[in-house]
């Protein structure tokens, strides 16, 4: 069983490397964000399988943290992309 899972990790890592091509090529920020998300999901899948093969339950914790913070980074990226598009929001929008 472990041999099969190792081969699957190899395939997922190869797909992860292919996904990097989209990060390199772009063309837009949206494409890069998508590629980063695919890389993240592939990395999470690889971590889960490695954790099960080696019986490292901490690998699943790492995958959980990665899933949570990759979402956070993607949200931050989208937020900044929007701010770059609409930079003219006045800083004093707060009420008293």
């Amino acid at each position: 069983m472990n041999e099969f899972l190792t081969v699957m990790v190899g395939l997922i890592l190869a797909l992860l490397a292919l996904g990097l091509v989209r990060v390199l090529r772009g063309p837009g920020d949206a494409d890069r964000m998508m590629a980063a998300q695919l890389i993240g999901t592939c990395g999470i899948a690889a971590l889960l399988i490695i954790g099960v093969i080696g019986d490292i339950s901490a690998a699943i914790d790492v995958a959980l943290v990665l899933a949570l913070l990759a979402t956070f980074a993607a949200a931050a990226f989208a937020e900044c992309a929007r701010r770059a598009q609409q930079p003219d929001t006045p800083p004093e929008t707060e009420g008293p």
Partner: protein
Amino acid sequence: MSAVLDLVTIVAVSAGVFFFLAGTVGLLRFPDTLTRLHALTKADNLGLGLVALGLLPQAGSLQNGLKLVCVWLLVLLAGATVSQLVAQAARREGSSS
């Protein structure tokens, strides 16, 4: 019994990797941002979901199994919201350039 469980693992993980393959090929080959997004969501939701499902029989303990399910639910939530945000960014990019 364990042979059946191993079979479940092989079938589900293979199917999951197939969806990852489909997502990656789509991300590389599809012509524009929104269709690429369509390909990506398959890898996120189904690919990782099937991989997690396939690993459940091998997880060893109930705690690990629950954590696998949590990872998948978290990625589902992330995929759903982030693809919305990406689509908004893509629309703005398209309209401004």
